[in-house]
């Protein structure tokens, strides 16, 4: 059983995105009511809305945090063809604590259609921002001077030739910068609906390195797992099914020598799930890239995890549906009886252990005794 707490969102319309900051102590949400809200975790463990502001002239689709090294910076994107960068500045300390103001530092207006996703690059690439639009353009902006985040220059535009709906940066610092872009185009004949681009240092260009042809249904979300030292990349794709694709870089050396050789990958579909029995809309990885969660039209958030052999399995289901919340309100007088969003545990199966060890009691060894073992 997990414990779910409701938050009064005070959004007047559909919430499109929620996002935690680097430390998980702040949160931002954006909605069709054209507003963005920032939430802070108080000392009492309660989330409080510390800032709310109305901005774009249309639904705000996505909100995302920059690395705190660059300050308290948010980016939003909207139906109104704009992406905006926000920075926090503090006003007076009131009775209730600090009230913060978020100041619009920059508006990125190059798009000719709705901006469907916005993501900051991993920190080691500096302060960069990628946005994608329904007309198929992916644009990468850079803020060359991190002390002045109102200056953004368009570094690259990538023509994907499909209607982009989502993008994700690969966080690996060991590999060249990489972006996956998904398309929610309905036309199944358009081929693969997810493309992977890589930045080539010698040509200074982003080039397409892979099209994931296995996915021809509209893609609603993509997410690279945090790499965390793995030798391969994991990409989760929310489409008609939930797919996990692994990309193992092959022959990175071939890029050497000022030759614009495209990196090659060994691409493998690691898992494909239809458990949502309906299209999957969002995917998100935990911090280590070991637990994947997905949400679909069935109104559930499902968690997935790989066992030791790399086989992915569902581990639990979080019901987020309205009927559940309605019930919770009724039960709120006695919350212990029916914790909100009660979760059923699936296949609580023990993972395969590596090995059985003789010294399960080894830590109880006495120092002196143990030293006796090695004697020269």
């Amino acid at each position, binding site marked *: 059983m997990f414990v779910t707490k409701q*938050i009064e969102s005070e959004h007047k319309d559909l919430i499109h995105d929620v996002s935690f900051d680097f430390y998980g102590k702040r949160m931002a949400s954006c909605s069709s009511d054209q507003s963005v809200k920032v939430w802070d975790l108080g000392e009492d463990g309660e*989330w409080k809305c510390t800032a709310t502001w109305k901005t774009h002239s249309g639904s705000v689709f996505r909100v995302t945090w920059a690395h705190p090294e660059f300050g308290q910076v948010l980016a939003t994107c909207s139906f109104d063809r704009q992406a905006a960068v926000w920075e926090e500045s503090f006003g007076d300390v009131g009775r209730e604590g600090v009230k913060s103001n978020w100041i619009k530092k920059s508006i990125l207006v190059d798009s000719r259609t709705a901006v469907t996703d916005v993501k900051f690059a991993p920190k080691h690439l500096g302060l960069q921002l990628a946005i994608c639009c329904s007309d198929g353009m992916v644009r990468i902006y850079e803020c060359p001077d991190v002390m002045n985040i109102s200056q953004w220059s368009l570094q690259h535009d990538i023509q994907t030739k499909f209607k982009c709906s989502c993008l994700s940066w690969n966080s690996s610092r060991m590999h060249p910068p990489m972006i996956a872009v998904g398309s929610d185009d309905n036309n199944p004949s358009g081929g693969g609906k997810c493309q992977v681009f890589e930045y080539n240092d010698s040509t200074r260009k982003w080039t397409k390195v892979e099209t994931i042809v296995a996915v021809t249904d509209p893609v609603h979300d993509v997410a690279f797992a945090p790499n965390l030292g793995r030798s391969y990349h994991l990409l989760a794709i929310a489409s008609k099914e939930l797919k996990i694709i692994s990309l193992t870089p092959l022959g990175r050396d071939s890029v050497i020598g000022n030759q614009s050789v495209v990196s090659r990958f060994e691409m493998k579909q690691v898992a494909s799930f239809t458990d949502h029995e309906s299209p999957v809309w969002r995917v998100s990885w935990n*911090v280590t890239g070991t637990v994947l969660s997905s949400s679909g*039209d069935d109104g559930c958030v499902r968690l997935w995890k790989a066992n030791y052999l790399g086989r992915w399995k569902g581990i639990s289901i979080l019901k*987020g549906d309205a009927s559940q919340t309605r019930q919770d309100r009724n039960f709120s007088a006695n919350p212990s009886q029916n914790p909100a969003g009660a979760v059923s545990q699936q296949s609580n199966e023990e993972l395969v252990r590596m090995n059985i060890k003789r010294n399960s009691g080894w830590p109880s060894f006495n120092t002196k005794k143990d030293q006796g073992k090695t004697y020269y």
Partner: protein
Amino acid sequence: MSNLKVHWSPIHDDVFCTCSPNKILLYKVVHSTEKPTQKVPSMRQMSDTLWAVEQPKSIEMGMLKTVAWYPKPEPDNMLAIGLANGRVILNNFSGNSESDLIKKEFVPKHTRSCIYLNWNPVDSHLLAEGLEKYRNDSCINIWNIHHKPGNELGDRQRYSSSHSESSGAIHTPYVEIGGPSETTASFCWFKKEPRTFVTGMNTRYLRIYDLRDCTRPQNQTQTKMIRGASVDRQNEHRIATFNENHVSVWDVRNFDKPMLTFQEPKAVSMIRWCPTRKGYLGILSQDSLTVKIYDILHLPQTVGSEELDQYYSERTIKVLNSQIVSSFSWHPKQDSRLLTVTQQGLLRDLIVQEHIPFNWSVDSTLVTAHGKSMSITSFNKDNSIPQDIAVKMKERILQGYGLKSDIIWENVYAIKEEPELYGVWRWLSYAREMLEYNKQGQTFQRGMMGKHLGVKSILGLDVDDMATSHMTNMYWSSDFYRKLACVKQYHSAERSKALQLCGWGGDHHKPELLDTILHELQMDGKYAIAAAMALFNLQISKAIEILSTSKGQENTDLSTVAMAIAGYTEEKNTLWRKTCMSLLQKLEDPYLRAMFAFLTCDRENYEEILTEQGGMQLSDKVAFACIYLDNDKLKEYINRLTRKVIEAGNLDGLLITGLTPDGVSLISRFVDMTGDIQTAALLCVFSLPNEMSKDERVLNWIESYRELLDRWRLWHHRSKFDIIWRAGDNFRVISQAFVSCNFCGKSIACNMPVASRARPHNSYSAGTLTSTKPKISCCPGCRKPLPRCSLCLTHLGTPSGSALYTQKDKTTYSAKMTAIDDWFTWCQSCRHGGHASHLLEWFAEHSECPVTGCNCKCSTLDHTARLAAES
């Protein structure tokens, strides 16, 4: 049963009706827990938890064409029923006419089929009826249900010839719309302007009328999309209509052309806006198994000078497997609730789920948003995702995993629950001891000084330079009652070092060492291992003794084994061997099995022990091989094992490889499989110095782990990790900040090198005592006083208040005072400052700078500080 329709009651949340051409049934929704226990004739499941109970009353009537539910609570459940002859009858299910409205009839001038009925949502006495085309009559009649039959003129005689007995019938509509020979296809009232409505007419016009002037349409557009007109109750400017397989959405303010047109694969049979959720348009196609929903977020619009495109998404709602949906109805009040009925009459109650955006935090908290609400789900230690490494790593570090750099194996205390990691820490700990020993210079090693070694390097296998080993025929210990043949063993200095690394003591010249180890194992209750080790060292009586003196649960088993071993004979085909074989089947302990394997095998063929999979520790197998295999076989065995452990990512294998390229590949495989970046980074750091410290992968693990610690805000732990990491090399962070004098510009250094230079005689006594620290309240260069603390107004460099206590009271104030209380500190932005302790006190209550006239919000500028304060 085809052509079945379903309607939610506009009044009651749990009442709906279904209509077939000759019968209307009323249902009440109950939860499965409240389901009546006695057998009710008709009860149907609607969803997992809801059942529909058929009410005993129904309306049966021939020629039934269409039904509309009266939108007011009184009279209860009143329906307007339109018939094939154009009559409209008001009825409720109870049949008793408390209200005079019940059983009231409205009769058009000419008999023709009724097409639709539509109640005005506000002026609910108005009921619109659409009728088939008639050459000299209008097609839309709007009835006022409160009209009294008496109000009628002499029309009655003229038109009611067929139904003269229906005395209560009303023949004069409130309003008639549409000229002779006009047709109507659909109709919908507006709610905000209750006297207006939209209707599709003459197969090519969509018209908006106002009852206050119904001679001509107020607005009209020419289109074929005239069927199913439906006004979006969430946004009354929006109208949806359809024709054949096209569905259009209109904005009444811009009525010339549709804002959006969707093309469906099949002819559309009905469309409805969801009354509760903005932008949901439900569409049902003929012979369809699903209900399609368009989630229209934005119609094309103009904002300022920008022409913005539409934005919508499609949803397909599966109803029931292979059942054609006949009709659906949105719940009038509850969010996105949809009731469907299939042609077979099966009901399904659904909720169209919102997309759920969500996000993970570093602390394994999940935020989910559902519609307009948000919730937080935390997966902490007690209710975490089973075995997830993210949660586990944080737990471990809080237990001190990887922070014990002095006594390495103390790190294992933090991973008590994870025995699979013990082996590698044991190796690290032994290898460190060996390293320390080597450092003392009492032994040789070829280029291996200062490294944590693996067995492979010790034996010289990695450079293919294996020291010769001499074979010895070893006798079994003499205290066994039977004389046994010699066993070949191999010895060399390298081999015994390898044995020590495996924890076997190893030196056959020092049997007392073996005894110590065996004793320890027995103390830990590991009798089988101790016995096996004794036996492999040819101490058969010792092994028997260990087994027979064992205490514990399995001791009966062990004594049996002891007895069996005692009967050991070298002859083949004896009864002993056969009995042992059958006993072997029952034994589960890998070490007991290995003992028998050792006793019964042909000498020099130990494959059974070396390749067993049952759970012998890798270190024991390697140690065994180091004793009993000759150089060639050992080399082959170790190489084979290396490949295997790398492939399996078995961390125990580091015992063999050490932190060599092979070892890094092994760890890489381990990370790929487990995501345990923590152990990987710790191994790389703890085995420093090693040849791989500049390897890209190693650095990547270390960096990734450090970032993880940073994200968890475990900055202290990260710093400790950094210290361990950088302890070996001469890495030094250069001084990063200097304070320079306002006057002469020289640095005001109060650190030790400067102080000792100034007063060399103090250098030996300087150290931990604060009293000997040089007091600098003026610039050492020009002797000008330093700025004053903005709070206590003493010169910086003089102690802050708490230090003014006399030294005697040291114990009382030391608790309150931190070491940095006296430090200069200042705001980076306004450049005012003072004693750290004073400023902290000030900013506990204020956010503005304490200096007069300075409005700098010093304390709110630093977000990280706020974070730290909160956590």
